[in-house]
């Protein structure tokens, strides 16, 4: 059988939209960790965004459907947990797409680290990250909740244009 070039496979995967945020693709999101041929079987290695992300099974289905449509007969999807997915892997152009879609992109380097004792005063002080409102561009925004419409997002509100919006939080 003819084995399509791996670059071609990457391009195909880059045409699959994320099921929850259709303006960015799976490759934009950085969850495709590897594509390789194992003899005549195409092996696509995928890492989950969040362990309980309900989109995971949809994503696997979409990958399989797309590759079958492109004529790949034998394929295997493998799950890779480590290194764990990080928002740092979201591609720059995808961040612009997120913003245009109304979701504030992650502010890199601000992920929670789970070590709390040193962060108590910051927590009680209610200081916020300088998250830019995707509608009006103001940084006078405030966090409404650590968890938004999906686990990967926090709920924010702009105090200038008063619109609520999602912030794609760092992980």
């Amino acid at each position, binding site marked *: 059988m003819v084995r399509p070039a791996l670059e071609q496979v990457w391009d195909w995967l880059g045409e699959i939209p994320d099921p929850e945020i259709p303006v960015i693709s799976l490759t934009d999101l950085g969850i495709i960790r590897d594509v390789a041929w194992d003899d005549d079987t195409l092996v696509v290695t995928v890492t989950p965004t969040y*362990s309980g992300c309900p989109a995971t099974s949809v994503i696997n289905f979409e990958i399989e459907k797309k590759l079958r449509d492109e004529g790949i007969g034998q394929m295997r999807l493998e799950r890779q947990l480590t290194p764990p997915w990080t928002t740092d892997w979201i591609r720059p152009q995808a961040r612009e797409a997120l913003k245009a879609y109304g979701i504030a992109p992650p502010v890199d380097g601000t992920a929670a680290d789970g070590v709390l*004792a040193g962060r*108590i005063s910051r*927590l*009680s002080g209610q200081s916020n990250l300088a998250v830019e409102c995707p509608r009006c561009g103001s940084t006078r925004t405030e966090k409404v909740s650590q*968890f938004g419409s999906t686990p990967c997002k926090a709920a924010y509100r702009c105090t200038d244009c008063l619109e609520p919006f999602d912030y794609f939080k760092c992980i």
Partner: protein
Amino acid sequence: MAPSLSDVMTPDAAALAAAQKGEGRAPLEVGSPGHDLFTGLTRLGDNCLILGHRVSEWCGHAPVLEEDIALANMALDLIGQTQLWLGLAGEVEGRGRDADALAFRRDGWDFRNLLLVERPNGDFGQTLMRQFLFDAWHAPMLKALEGSSDDRIAAIARKAGKEVAYHIERSADLVIRLGDGTEESHARMQAALEALWGYAGEAFIADAVDTRLAEAGLMPAPESLRATFDETVNAVFAEATLTRPESDFAHQGGKQGRHSEHMGHLLTHMQWLQRAYPDATW
């Protein structure tokens, strides 16, 4: 009745597949390294499962929409982590049980979760206090598990740890805001702390399984996490103007399968569908 020709000639595909998966294999011997690891993994997975289920009970009932969504998302994280831990437990056991089989087809005495996570939700304050006490143990536990001698455990811990980092920020933040809030919210948080404190200590008490797992470098010794826990809760209670109860007496039993009266009720809700319609899918 004599078997028909096709019965003799056709291998039973289902039986072959079951044998390949290990179904029907003898249970792991109690006290063996495999059984210890299985026990350790079910303790981790059952904590996530039972707390995830409890938190999901709030879906549609939380005081405001944002909190409802946040609680549902945290429950989702915990259920996702359950799949990883119980999936690995089933793999280690090698008897063909996957995460779903372990979650939905075990009886109460087979569950290894802490008594803390099966406590009823109570009011919103009690739910948050339970979450905070759990998170204050869970975060350093996962951090320590990143150094496990088993790569599979380390990989799950690294993944889950990033999610739990957000859980503890949220639960600590709300404990502070409600503790140092109105007279009413303060009183409720103090009451919640007093009601739950006796269940916070179980996580730090080692039994023989814990000790052997720690000696093998697979999981940290439970008592090694106490200092970090104390540092976290003391700092948060001080900010929250809450008074830590004097006695550190700890109710025990959950880790060994001796549960409170609340566990059976929880399981009847959680398991009824798979019990009534085994292998149901949709």
